[in-house]
């Protein structure tokens, strides 16, 4: 029976502010992309899932058992990459991974072999003995990703793991995550929709502490059909229209300029898009008016 991570009516309150309000969904093996604007509650959700803060209500169940009851047993199952690059500048990459291995309670031999494997996987073998303080943001991010993969945990919670990576690295890491996710639950928060577009089994959209959509990309795309459309015209016309639809995206085609908008129902004069709908459009539809999502 596959592993299951169930979130039931999970809430978090800071005084009168509801960071999360009765959020419910169930994660199964595969990548789940987590999308939401800044301040939507993504990091709060991840912190609650890694038991970094007390919850105000609800439950997080791992195969039916609350993670609070599991304590260190739960933490032994989780690999976590935080958003902030929290690594020791004075450690070399290899020593840092050894340290994380020790914290994860791995046997010595495992620590050694897996550290080498993970450094190879994130393309850091050449910099293994360099101090992390000398690393670029992308390299730090890869060290963190490698540390979360140590011990091959069945649950991976990744908060923007591809931030700061160059396009080639991004594709490589994305593929690695997809490979890892075959038998693991991966919750991946990112502001680059393309990171999850091709690997996510499910997409979770959060807005102001509430889940507004949780479905497969196919269903979400099907749902968006007829709500995404394009205006065509000269640059001046498109500019005038954008004043009306500030969240619309201007693009240049061979025939001229288009403004792609996500509205339900579509405004008059706007031609619905049928063929090339993307997850980006889905995000526009659900999260428009919010600040930068991701």
């Amino acid at each position: 029976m596959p592993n299951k991570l169930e979130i039931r009516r999970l809430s978090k309150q800071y005084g009168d502010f509801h960071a999360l309000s009765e959020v419910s969904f169930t994660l199964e093996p595969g990548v789940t992309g987590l999308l939401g604007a800044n301040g939507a509650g993504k990091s709060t959700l991840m912190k609650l899932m890694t038991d970094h803060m007390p919850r105000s209500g609800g439950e997080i169940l791992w195969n039916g058992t609350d993670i609070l009851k599991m304590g260190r047993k739960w933490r032994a199952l989780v690999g976590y990459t935080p958003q902030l690059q929290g690594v020791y500048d004075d450690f070399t990459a290899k020593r840092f991974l050894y340290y994380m291995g020790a914290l994860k309670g791995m046997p010595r031999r495992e620590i050694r072999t897996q550290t080498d494997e993970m450094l190879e996987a994130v393309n850091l073998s050449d910099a293994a003995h360099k101090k992390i303080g000398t690393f670029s943001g992308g390299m730090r991010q890869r060290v963190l990703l490698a540390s979360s993969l140590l011990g091959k945990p069945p649950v991976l919670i990744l908060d923007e793991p591809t931030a700061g990576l160059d396009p080639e690295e991004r594709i490589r890491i994305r593929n690695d995550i997809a490979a890892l996710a075959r038998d693991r639950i991966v919750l991946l928060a990112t502001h680059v929709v393309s990171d999850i577009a091709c690997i996510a089994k499910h997409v979770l959209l959060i807005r102001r502490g509430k889940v507004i959509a949780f479905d497969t990309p196919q269903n979400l795309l099907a749902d968006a059909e007829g709500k995404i459309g394009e205006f065509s015209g000269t640059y001046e016309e498109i500019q005038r229209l954008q004043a009306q639809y500030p969240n619309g995206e201007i693009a240049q085609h061979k025939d001229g300029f288009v403004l792609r908008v996500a509205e339900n129902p579509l405004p008059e004069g706007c031609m619905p898009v049928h063929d090339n709908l993307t997850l980006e459009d889905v995000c526009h539809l659900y999260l428009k008016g919010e600040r930068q999502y991701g």
Partner: protein
Amino acid sequence: MAELGRLLLSPKRLIILLMAAVINLALFSGYCRNQREESLAYYQSMRMYGMNVQSEEYRQRKAYLETEYAAYLDYVQNQSKTQSILGSLTEKNDFLNRNAEKTTRDYARLTGITLRDGENRGINAVRNYKITDYLLLIAPLLLILELLADADTAAGDLVRATKHGRVPLCAWRILAVMLLSAASVLLLYGGNLLYTCKFWGQPDFTRAVQSIPEFQYCVMRLTVGGYLLGAAALKILALTVISLLIWVILARMHPVLGWTVSGLVFGSAWLMHRLIVPTAGLNHLKYLNVFAALDADIFFSQYCNLNCFGRPVGFFGAMLLFCMILLLLGIMLCLWLIGYAYPKKVGARMEALKDRFARFLTRHLPVHTLLGFEGWKLMIAQKGMLILLIAGVMGFSLWQDIRVYVPVNAATERFYALFSGEITREHIERAAYIVSGEAKSIARSRTALARAYLERAQTDESDVSAMRRVNRHISDIQGNIQKSQSELYYYSKCLNTMLSLAQYTKETGRDAWFIRPEAYTVLFQDSAAEHRCCTVLLLYLIFSFSGICAYDNRYDTRMLLRSTKRGRLGLFTAQTVWVMLLTALAVTGLHGVYLLHMMQDAGLESLDAPAQSLKLFQWIPFSVTMRGILVLHMLLRYLAALAVTAGICIVSRCSRTPQKALLTAMVIFLLPSALAESGMEQLQMLNVIRRLTCCLQA
């Protein structure tokens, strides 16, 4: 100008200066009180042997001021003339002749100088306390490190891209280093002087510096105030030179190589200054040295001419010229290599070497356990090893600095030698026999005295020799009586102690031996020496542990650690083990310094005696030896240190960075303690140093 304000008036800089001053005050006030206590204990113990050292010292000082200094000047003139005559006859050594002539000329300037007595202890304390010289380096070096770190960031490139971002900016920064050095000297050195004025009274700054016997060899016509200003100016000069040279070295070299070169250059300069004797042929290296300038005092309290191609050159002038050249060189190098030249990029060869070393460490010093990693974080990443080493050096310097005097007289010592140990009936009888024998001896001496008086009355007064003999006889008998009375007093006191201890054993059934209580009294009472050890201990605890949790808080690493299986209790346990181990090491090391002194200097003995042998411990309801009490006392001190460490760790846990944790811990733990130690009674409640001593007697 804006750069000057940014660098010097930033809250961070002011806090660093203030903290350096607070550390200095805590250490220096302890030193001064220790000096006074040691003097008093020394006078008291010498008085026990019938010697009045205090009045002897006063007599010597008076003799120096009234006759000896003038005689010394005459002696120097005569010696130099003799040397000059001898030299002209032999004509073998030009330097010796010229040196004699120069010495005559130099000392001739002092003819007619008027010396006045005054309070010298404060000036001598300021002169002799060398730790301040090293604390002076804190603020300028931290500024240099900050400038170097800034240069490595994007802000460094941004600044260099502006119109005034290179040479002019560098000039302002050099000026900032100079001003900060001056501020550091004024604050720390001036703080010491102010403290001594409060502690020993204000010295007369207007008298000639030669009024202080330690400045007998000074050939400059200076007042005490002039000497202080001159010494401060030299220190500022030395500090600026050291800071600028370190800045240039670190800016142009790989950090590892830079620190190694700086360490070698300044370490060897320091060793040459400390180890070369003034009369050595290579004494140029001792005096033409930045550390000689930082010491400053030697140029006022010694006299020396350097052999410069056969010509005698005054060591002060030569050093001043040398330091000025170094200062100019430092300024020019800074302007050229830091301001004008392109910034040095990290050398690939050095990086490769560093990588190889890191690989070697990972392979040959593999750490896989959590305990090992926490040790690595604490001792290597957070420089705990260096802090421990510095604490060790400070402990060693305390070991050399502290003297313990126990006021015991010869009669009591004899009694202890005879009867120390278990109190037996035989011991009491023998002691009583000695006391009664002493009483009988006094009675016999009194009879002999009466007979001697009678004999004097019967002696013919015109017979001078007979009268002299009788008077001498009377005086001898009187002396014997006085001595016997004193011995009888001390013997009786000891016998009474023996009897009261025997009575105690009879009443309570608990053993009590007759032991020397004086050394234990000194050990358990509140003393400045103990406070000095505890000041170093507190500084060690603050510097060593303030980063322990804050290091994990930086960049929110704690969140990552806490998401792992052993990142909570396991991490806490490993950190606690290290904290307990290192605290135990520091406590035993630093308190051990004082305990060893007590063993060696004060004759702490009878460790197997029951603790109830001392009145102080007669309330203890169980049997325990003095050794046990010492262990328990050490344990108590350990617990006190652990309590303080726990406080520091809590501060560390609540701080975002190790630097903030360090400053907060210093403000909470060190600042009130330092102020209380320096005499602010209102803050005694917050005095952590006092709590750390765990004194059992006031």
